[in-house]
């Protein structure tokens, strides 16, 4: 490292970097972080690319390399197949389904973006910093950004957007990310280009919550009216939504005032599909160029096809198999462990995803999270499972019904679990509902209870959970004693306390300390089985260039082109 670069790096550490940034650099220097983990956390704490590069060099790692974006010829309209269609209107703060978030996010942008590598890159914010306790995060906004209406973006627009996202009475679907973390009053304007987020509780991973991970967090003008997103272009993205027909499709034209310059495409035509076979054949028949999301189980014709490119991003999307801990037959942890040990996870991963997934270890700490601690992997062990059943007084087995719904590979997984537990004497019947019936009923949440909805009240079920950049929501909503989506009704004061400490921890070392304890506790108690975390997959024609899969399934086209 040359002298001048080292001098600037040391000056940064002495006078610019705060305690959080310096702690991160110390962790890198002490060898507690590898290169990938450092990159992820450095972007989370808002370190600039030059400082990241300098730090890597200073501590003897390979320098940052910037690969040129693979770019095709300028021009052409990209035809995108989106499955499924949006379920309702397109107000960003209400997005809860794939169709809506894909449609809206082609035209809108957030303060920052999570890449397919799990790092954060600036978007409408150019930098962010936290105080030492991670309770106040200050964001510097990008200057000169225009909305598609022509107005310039300022802190007022960001404040208004986040007040809408955190309003408990406004129908915001982002509350799952922000409840307990940020309240409307906590979003404050510092000056025209600076916003401060005063959090309700310390949250070390807050920058991920302002990124594309929270796909509702599209920045809109302060005077945005609900119900107008599909009628008037008003995002800041490279493409304007110029027409939208529910259930049919949408079209986008390039936005001349985009802060990133001129996009390579002449426009985007989005077509909605409700059938996997139809969207796969559309790509193979050259009627579309890109599919937002494909699955191994329904898109086998695409894999190993020489004319198709598969895009993948590691993420934390998974299937949760909770078991009711407060009533028989699963109120004994030994029985829950026995069920977990009856599964051949390697075989399941091969069968359902052709190995395009990470093995789950019955905790929500997916391998993609830097704070995850790698415990010995649980594998199939029928002998031990039978011992546990006997110790719990159920050597003869019992009958139980597993409930899930007809989507993706869920019915297949249900059949696999049914066959697996048969080996330890459990007679499992299957109840495969429609998604409407599975999620029907009321969801009240503690202390009132969990309502009547099947997915929160059946002895054992399978539910799909979308990916997140940090595991905080999984810990608070699905496993906390007061979690509104605690389908296993798991109650552990120790868990609640450790989860709170984990969320508040800023340094990776502390996060790992709590993560390890949480993982060990969950493996012992096994309130739920996490069989795998599958990769987010997209597919496109070979002529599509510069496209990357998004861990949350967004379709980001600002740097995409056609060869």
């Amino acid at each position, binding site marked *: 490292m040359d002298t001048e670069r080292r001098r600037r790096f040391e000056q940064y550490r002495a006078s610019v970097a705060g305690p959080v940034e310096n702690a991160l650099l110390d962790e890198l220097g002490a060898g507690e972080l590898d290169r990938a983990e450092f990159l992820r956390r450095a972007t989370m704490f808002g370190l600039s690319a030059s400082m990241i590069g300098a730090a890597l060099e200073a501590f003897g790692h390979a320098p940052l390399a910037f690969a040129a974006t693979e770019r095709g010829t300028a021009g052409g309209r990209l035809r995108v197949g989106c499955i499924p269609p949006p*379920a*309702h209107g397109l107000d960003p703060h209400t997005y809860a389904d794939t169709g809506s978030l894909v449609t809206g996010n082609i035209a809108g942008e957030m303060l920052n973006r999570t890449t397919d590598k799990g790092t954060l890159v600036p978007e409408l914010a150019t930098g962010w910093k936290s105080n030492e306790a991670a309770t106040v995060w200050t964001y510097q906004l990008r200057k000169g950004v225009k909305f598609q209406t022509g107005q310039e973006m300022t802190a007022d627009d960001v404040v208004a957007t986040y007040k809408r996202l955190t309003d408990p009475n406004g129908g915001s679907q982002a509350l799952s990310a922000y409840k307990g973390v940020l309240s409307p009053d906590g979003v404050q304007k510092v000056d025209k280009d600076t916003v401060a987020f005063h959090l309700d509780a310390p949250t070390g991973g807050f920058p991920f919550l302002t990124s594309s991970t929270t796909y509702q967090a599209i920045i809109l003008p302060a005077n945005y009216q609900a119900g107008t997103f599909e009628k008037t272009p008003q995002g800041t993205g490279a493409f304007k939504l110029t027409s939208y027909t*529910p*259930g049919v499709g949408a079209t986008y034209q390039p936005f001349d005032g985009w802060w990133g310059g001129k996009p390579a495409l002449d426009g985007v035509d989005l*077509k909605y599909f*409700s059938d996997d076979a139809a969207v796969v*054949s559309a790509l193979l028949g050259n009627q579309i160029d890109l599919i937002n999301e494909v699955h191994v189980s329904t898109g086998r014709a695409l894999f190993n096809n020489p004319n198709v490119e598969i895009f993948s991003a590691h993420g934390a999307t998974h299937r949760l198999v909770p078991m009711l801990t407060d009533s028989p037959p699963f109120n004994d942890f030994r029985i829950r462990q026995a069920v977990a040990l009856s599964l051949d996870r390697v075989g399941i991963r091969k069968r359902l995803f052709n190995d395009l997934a990470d093995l789950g270890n019955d905790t929500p700490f997916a391998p993609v999270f830097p704070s995850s601690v790698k415990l010995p992997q649980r594998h199939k062990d029928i002998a031990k499972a039978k011992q546990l059943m006997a110790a719990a007084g159920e050597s003869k087995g019992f009958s139980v019904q597993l409930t899930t719904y007809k989507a993706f590979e869920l019915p297949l997984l249900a059949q696999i679990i049914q066959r697996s537990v048969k080996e330890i004497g459990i007679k499992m019947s299957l109840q495969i509902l429609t998604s*409407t019936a599975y*999620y029907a009923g009321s969801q009240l949440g503690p202390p009132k209870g969990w309502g009547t909805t099947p997915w929160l009240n059946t002895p054992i079920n399978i539910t799909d959970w979308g990916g997140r950049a940090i595991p905080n929501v999984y810990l608070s909503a699905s496993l906390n004693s007061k979690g509104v989506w605690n389908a296993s009704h798991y109650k552990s004061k120790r868990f609640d306390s450790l989860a709170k400490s984990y969320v508040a921890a800023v340094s990776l070392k502390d996060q790992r300390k709590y993560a390890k304890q949480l993982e060990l506790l969950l493996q012992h108690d096994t309130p739920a089985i996490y069989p795998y975390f599958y990769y987010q997959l997209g597919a496109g024609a070979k002529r599509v260039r510069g496209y990357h899969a998004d861990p949350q399934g967004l379709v980001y086209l600002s740097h995409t082109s056609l060869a």
Partner: protein
Amino acid sequence: MARFLANRLALSIVTLFILSVIVFAATQLLPGDVGRNVLGPFADQKSVDLYNHQVGADRPVLVQYGDWIWKFVHGDMGTSRQYQVSVWSLLGPSLVNSLKLAAEAFVLVVPLSILGGVTAALRRGRLTDRAITITGLSLTAVPEFVSAIFLIVAFGVFLTWLPVNAQWPDGTGVLGQMKYLLLPSLALVMVLFGYIARMARHGTIEALSADYTRTAYMKGVGTATVIRRHVLRNALLPTIAVVATQTGYLIGGLLVIEKLFNYNGIGQRIYIAAQNKDVTMLQSGVLLVGLVYLVATFIADLLYSLLNPRIRFGSAE
């Protein structure tokens, strides 16, 4: 004839009313509510309740039905609870699309089936008859999603002769639209050919063995004339009835075809509305299909009476 028309009109109105009550009642039995279906499983109960209140889904059932039927008879199909836009703005284009697909399928299958059935009857017992009958039966036995996938893979993916999705880009002319609709139409031809051809064959065989046909031959009338003037008009009577009953299926029952060919037809609209308990869309869609079906059977009855003088002069049952 006027009395006939008036009777049919009155019956149609009663039929549609009963249909609307049945569908509305059946919808109430569906699980879930529109708020939960639209906002998703992770929305909090308060948001769901608010949504249901905003769209009027929490009102008493009779009030909801009364409100809807009152507006419907005044030409207002209401607002989609799911999409919050006028129902007609979505159903209208879907209905037009379904009519286009039905028309193309009709134009292909009806002449082909009648020709096949009449030919089979004229060559009864011979190889041609066997070939047409067996082919028709085999195609009918194959589910439409199987034949549709075969057509998509063969003609769309491997040969790339035809588009695999039926929804044409904006600005496509009539001939272009027909090209996009050719594959789904062929799938429907494969499903319907056997049934219609069998009816035509049966009707033709009966007419060929009738006294009036024998008389015509004995008078020295040529075969072509006998077929055209005496046999066909009697042979096609049952075929007309069969074709009319298939109209309802062709308009509103093509969900599988519409999904596989990604075609914005009324079948898919109704299905999505049922899934999400979008009652206004569902009711209006079903009534529209019912209306089209009634019009089709009415036209079939008119044609029947034109071909059968006994109906016209009121002497038949």
